[in-house]
């Protein structure tokens, strides 16, 4: 028989994490249903449905190509600007949407938080996972662009998929941290779009890292998304070198953000229902 002990202190430290993971496993079906709900709801009442996953990055790419590629003559490391920007917009669109959804996930589920128990970590997890479906759908456009611009397709491209892992970690960790603050201060809801906009400019989506002076490039690696996006361009385009060191640093930072977000989230979740 299943026993539950509810007490004031609860577990702390590594024990709390172990317990949190065990519970998450026990509630895995709920996680599945939350992801399923997110996807269902997102595509249900929209006329274009899943096409939106393609439209958003594609339109952004068109606008960027006109303004930055054509008019501002932004260098793009010798790659056609549409492909150059889309290859970064693909992970960036995922990241920005996942970060925004995760940052709001606790607040938008207030009714659940105050009425029923489940491991609260399910909410940010469902948010980052359901966004991956959009990512996969939008990837098809990248393939079309490769064919159109006659760029060689090769097996190394598949490395994009494992490279998305640190992006997911970073969105999860940073999103979870924002979600915790969001519970107490709704200001965060309005801060997130602004934060994402600033982050976009600090990330080589519009421009290549090569336009930055050499001595400032290490700063790029501190922004984990920047390092990964450069890495993704590296594995996609054979003429670009892959900077494994930068990928390593970015991944390590992403994982650190995830662990911090996860731990802080586990520590704060008990208070959600009281202050939300």
């Amino acid at each position, binding site marked *: *028989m*299943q*026993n*539950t*002990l*509810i*007490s*004031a202190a*609860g577990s702390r430290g590594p024990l709390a994490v172990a317990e949190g993971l065990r519970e998450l496993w026990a509630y895995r*079906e*709920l996680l599945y*249903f939350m992801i399923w*709900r997110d996807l*269902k*709801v997102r595509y*249900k*009442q929209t006329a274009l449905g899943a096409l939106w996953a393609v439209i958003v990055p594609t339109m952004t790419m068109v606008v960027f190509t006109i303004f930055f590629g054509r008019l501002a003559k932004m260098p793009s490391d010798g790659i056609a600007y549409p492909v150059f920007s889309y290859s970064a917009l693909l992970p960036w669109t995922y990241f920005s949407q996942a970060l925004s959804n995760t940052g709001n996930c606790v607040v938008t589920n207030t*009714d*659940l*938080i*105050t*009425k*029923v*128990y*489940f491991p609260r970590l399910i909410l940010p997890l469902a948010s980052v996972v359901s966004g991956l479906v959009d990512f996969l759908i939008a990837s098809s456009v990248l393939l079309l662009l490769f064919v159109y611009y006659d760029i060689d397709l090769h097996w190394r491209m598949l490395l994009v998929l494992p490279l998305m892992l640190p992006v997911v970690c970073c969105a999860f960790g940073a999103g979870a941290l924002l979600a915790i603050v969001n519970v*107490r*201060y*709704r*200001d*965060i809801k309005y801060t997130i779009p602004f934060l994402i906009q600033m982050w976009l400019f600090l990330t080589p989506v519009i421009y290549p890292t090569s336009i930055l002076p050499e001595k400032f490039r290490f700063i790029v690696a501190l922004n984990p998304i920047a390092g990964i996006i450069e890495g993704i361009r590296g594995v996609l385009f054979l003429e670009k070198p892959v900077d494994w060191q930068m990928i390593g640093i970015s991944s390590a930072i992403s994982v650190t953000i995830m662990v911090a977000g996860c731990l802080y989230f586990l520590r704060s979740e*008990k*208070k959600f*229902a*009281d*202050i939300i």
Partner: protein
Amino acid sequence: MLTSSDIAIRVDGVSKQYRLGELSASGSFREALAGLFSRRRRELRTLMALEDVSFEVPVGQAVGLIGRNGAGKSTLLKVMSRITAPTAGRILVNGRLSSLLEVGTGFHQDLTGRENIYLNGSILGMSKAEVDAKFEQIVEFAEIERFLDTPIKRYSSGMRLRLGFAVAAHLDHDVLLVDEVLAVGDASFQKKCLGAMDDLRRGQRTILFVSHNMAAVETLCSRAIWIDRGHLRMDGDAPAVIDAYLSSFGNLEGARHDLATIEERGGSGAIRFTGMEWLDAAGRPVDVVRTGDRLRVRLYYEATERVAEPHFGFEIHSQMGTLVAESSTWSTGLEIPRVEPGRGELELEFEALNLMPGRYRISLWISSIGGIDYDLLEHCSLMDVETSDVFPSGRGADQRFGLVHFPARWRIQAGR
């Protein structure tokens, strides 16, 4: 002494303290920043919602949790459901627990009935296999076969309620915590829900049931626990505890009720009711009110500070706790721009007191539109409605024929 395997729930010295600053939803970043720089720290008042509550529930027992609004019943349920953590003490639950603090938790407007059954079931802790196995029964109980693939935003509120309860009623867990879900819905559905709960009880499920409906508690539960201002006040056989609880509300005094000395009241106290008086249509005090009477209630209040746009409310509850009628300055559209410090009075006039003879309880409140409560007086006064010949046939004015008298006329058209 019960052995541990016979115990379904053991609550051991549980306390829950809220910081009132935390409860306010107005917390913004600006305030926090302002707090950093102002030398006067925001004073943190605390509220003990529960204090040292202990009890045990053996497997298979149905226990009713009763008490006034804000006494701590819902907090206790929330702590037991793990929605919020206790400040002190511990609770041991043997077996799978599920809590029903609301019907249809997590329903999504855009999803169909079928999809919501699965979603709601999994939120309540059912596995997909369990929902699959009970799907037919759930649909049948909810009576929504035809609308199974319609988004629930097109459902009536009654259908949504039935669907929510249908899923909940098929929870097969060992311990169920139920909060007041029966307070909504029509009478036949309430009966169905009570029936479902009764089945669960017979099936060796342990049920903890919070309700203001004493009749439901008495039917369902053999035992009742009375929570009063965060403390466990009485624990025992349901009829005895319900009796003690109901008789704690005080008795009818003369025509003029003193409300200033009542200590059990909620709200900030910026305005308080100080008295209440029954008057007849001509403004003379009365001490007997009868079915169908034209009446006025004069309410006296005192404000300790200037209050903008307060709303005053008057509620009539039946003996068993059902809200029979309410009237407020908000619902009737009477705007009161402000109340200055000092005493004042206001009057509420009834065209006709359409209540069947019997005993009723009056509750009064003063609140702001924004949800700040200034004064909450729950069941602060008893009202005995005497019989009168309202119909007028000399018959029928009796509580056996309902709570409310509604002026109506029968006609028959024979031989058509």
